[in-house]
């Protein structure tokens, strides 16, 4: 276990901004992709009455 | 001898025709009829290997035309809706290049004679840009007068935008081509009267 405490974990040895900046944007990208697919499916269902 | 074997064509999501069959023996003319959007042009483009059918094959004397590639191209004269006339070139230059493309290098005199036959005498050296639409079409049709060596003619609306005189000339050329044992496939809204030739009619329902 590398981290003394939860704060230490987020502090990430001073590199918190960079590490969580990376993982945060990574997660954001994935979330956006899934949401985009959902919206595309809903738009499809609305116009064609076809199930997603 | 041209054969179509269970041809099917799909254009823009619609099945235009399927399991279309015909055999075209030397000396016969196949006239393709049908309303607009029935797939007449698509069929012609499939026959000359430009477009791919969804199913079926085009056979040229028993062999798959697609596989023959330029062997088939060497025997084919295709005239589409577009006249393939370069505006910056003169009718003579256009005709010379069109003939060279199918391997029939024609001397200048023969080029001029073909152009004259289509009523373009005296306009051989005028850049095509200055010709009328009908004259450009005739410049493209001049190829018919130089294509005795091409057994198969595929013509899309050859008589469109032509005056009466030009229509007679074109029909005469097609007539001699068929009499020489050539084959032709064409679409035309006008009725085709060719005395000696046997005419097949293929109606696309659409």
């Amino acid at each position, binding site marked *: 276990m590398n981290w003394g405490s939860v704060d230490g974990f987020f502090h990430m040895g001073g590199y918190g901004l960079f590490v969580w900046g990376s993982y945060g944007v990574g997660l954001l990208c994935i979330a956006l992709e899934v949401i985009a697919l959902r919206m595309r499916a809903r738009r499809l269902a609305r116009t064609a009455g076809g199930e997603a | 001898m041209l054969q179509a074997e269970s041809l099917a064509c799909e254009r823009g999501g619609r099945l235009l025709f399927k399991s279309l069959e015909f055999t075209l023996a030397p000396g016969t003319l196949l006239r393709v009829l049908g309303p607009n959007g029935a797939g007449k042009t698509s069929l012609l483009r499939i026959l000359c290997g*430009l477009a791919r059918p969804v199913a079926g094959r085009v056979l040229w004397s028993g062999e798959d035309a697609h596989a023959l590639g330029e062997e088939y*191209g060497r025997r084919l004269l295709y005239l*589409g809706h577009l006249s393939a006339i370069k505006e910056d070139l003169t009718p003579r230059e256009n005709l010379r290049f069109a003939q060279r493309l199918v391997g029939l290098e024609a001397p200048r005199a023969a080029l001029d004679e073909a152009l004259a036959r289509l009523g373009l005498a005296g306009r051989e050296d005028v850049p095509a840009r200055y010709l009328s639409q009908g004259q450009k079409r005739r410049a493209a049709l001049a190829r018919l007068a130089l294509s005795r060596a091409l057994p198969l003619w595929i013509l899309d609306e050859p008589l469109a935008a032509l005056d009466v005189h030009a229509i007679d000339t074109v029909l005469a050329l097609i007539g001699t081509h068929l009499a020489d044992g050539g084959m032709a496939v064409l679409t035309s809204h006008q009725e085709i009267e060719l005395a000696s030739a046997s005419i097949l009619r293929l109606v696309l329902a659409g």
Partner: protein
Amino acid sequence: MLASLAGIIERDLRLAFRRKGDVAQVLVFFVIVASLFPLGTGAEPNQLRAMGPGVVWVAALLAALLSLNRLFAADYADGSLEQMLIAAHPLAVTVAGKTIAHWLTTGLPLTLLAPLLGVQYDLPGAALGALVASLALGTPVLSLIGAVGAALTLGTRGAAVLLALLVLPLYVPVLVFGAGAVGAALAGLPHGAHLSLLGAFLVFSTVFAPWATCAALRIALD
């Protein structure tokens, strides 16, 4: 086969000379683009000399890109391209002929004009020599790869921008070693390796690019 190739080249050159303006436009564009940079970065000789190779090469690349639609677009529009697909010779011969004609009317003039711009960037003799050599080997590759992009974007919406988007990433290796050769010559280093790699790209694209262009043309006319 060779006669057909010569026929295609002769036709395209004849068409190009009938429209000298188009050919001249590309060369003028090349000179203008290359001449703009000093206005932006200042004309300090050392700086100019350092960026000279890159600027001249990028300007040549953009000029070649600009002229690519001349390859097939006009023939596609008036039905000539259709006729070329039903020719007595393989489509690859037609594509090769048109690509050579395109190079003769863009790549070659750019290569001959480049030393003038090189002087503008205070490039010494050795670098000018490398510039001409690298362009002579590189511009045919620009035509070959560009032909693929031109064929793929035939009849598509917004073809001009799309063509740039498709083709420029593929131009990167030629740019890297083209400008690299001139940079090496500038620094007095040997640049034989760069030129041989450019030669390798030329051979590689001569073998592969025509196949892709033919496939793209058949798709466009299907």
